[in-house]
Structures are given as C-alpha cells and as structure tokens.
C-alpha cells in the first residue's frame, strides 16, 4: 500500500524567491516512482517533475528540482525564481512498481506567489 503526506496545506513566496514544498511517503514496494503535479486554477493537472526511486541523482526541470531522500522517504519540491504563473495547488504522488500507473496523491499544497 502507498501513502503520501503533504504537511503544508498552504505556502506563500515572493516573486523571484525560492520555496520548498514538503512531501513524505510510505510504500512497501522496492521499485516506485514519485511525481509532482501542478493544478492551476484552471483545474488541469500538469506534470512538473518525476523521480525514479532507483536513481540517486535528484531530478531537475528548469526552475524545479527535487530533494529525494530515499531512506527518510522524503520527496520535496524546490521552486527557484518563483513566478506568478507558479501559483497553483501542488500534488505529490507515488506509483508503485507493480501498480499499473495507479497514482496515490497527497492532500495537496496551495502555493501563493506574491508580486
């Protein structure tokens, strides 16, 4: 069974600053994948970044990077040089290696970006 916990219901950041969103997870699988999805006010979910659990190197996508701590089962998202368009709800999710793409989502973190 997979569980994903996001302990920050809301976060805020000034434009151009850096913010980190926290996520912890639990899984009984040895092989799994972690994702951060973004849901802007338009509602459509968009993949931000993906991390394969077997890779030690942290994933990066332009201004987005993760801090993946496998032993601690932690998967935080860092957004650098925050932009107004980053304002959204962010969901951390996990898919186990045998799960057929069954994503388990955290509760979400609402990110507000102040100009």
């Amino acid at each position, binding site marked *: 069974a997979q569980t994903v916990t996001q302990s920050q219901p809301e976060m805020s950041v000034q434009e151009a600053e850096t913010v980190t969103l926290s996520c912890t997870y639990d899984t009984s699988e040895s092989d799994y994948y972690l994702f951060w999805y973004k849901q802007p006010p338009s509602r459509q979910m968009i993949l931000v970044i993906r991390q394969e659990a077997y890779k030690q190197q942290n994933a990066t996508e332009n201004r987005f990077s993760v801090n993946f701590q496998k032993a601690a089962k932690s998967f935080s998202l860092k957004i650098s040089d925050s932009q107004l368009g980053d304002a959204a709800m962010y969901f951390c999710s996990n898919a186990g290696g045998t*799960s057929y793409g069954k*994503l388990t989502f955290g509760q979400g973190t609402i990110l507000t970006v102040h100009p």
Partner: protein
Amino acid sequence: DTAVSQTPKYLVTQMGNDKSIKCEQNLGHDTMYWYKQDSKKFLKIMFSYNNKELIINETVPNRFSPKSPDKAHLNLHINSLELGDSAVYFCASSQGRGPQETQYFGPGTRLLVL
C-alpha cells in the same frame, strides 16, 4: 488541439438520475484513467483501461461503470446519482500502463448532484 478532452465540463443533475461523462484523447496513448477529486481536493483513482482492457478497478460503488469503446475513448456512466457523487472527475491518459508513465489529464468535469 486538445490532448485529453472531457464532455461535459459542468453537469448539474438531480439525485437518482443517471449520467455519463465522456473522455477522448488524441495522443495515441494506450492507457486511460478516471480520477475523482472531492470537495477537499483529494484525488483518488477509480479505474484504468489499457487497450480497452480494465486493469485498475478501485473500490467504488457499482453504480459507477466505465466503458472503453476503443483506446482513444473512456466513458464513465453513473447510475442513481447520490449527493456524495458531487465532485470533479478527471480523465487522464498515458502512453503505457507502467508506473513510470507520465499521465496527461483532461480539464475535468464538475458534477453537482442536487
């Protein structure tokens, strides 16, 4: 071109009615999913099809029945609607059915049961 589309975007109906939500993807993907997002924004998978075969069937009331006429379409039919069915329903698709796949989501269908 919309990659994953859903119709309708909004659906308001009375308790006890039967309704359907349709989803279409033009990405050439083999796998499609239905998710439910409740009023607290919690997202939970309901079903998944791969090449018209049901591969994920979570514990949902049997009033919910998915149908995949072909791999580009996945519909969700709901019988005897209840107040608790009010939610946003998202369709998604992915190239394959593995856990590593990126899922592409539709815009959602907001269902309100009165």
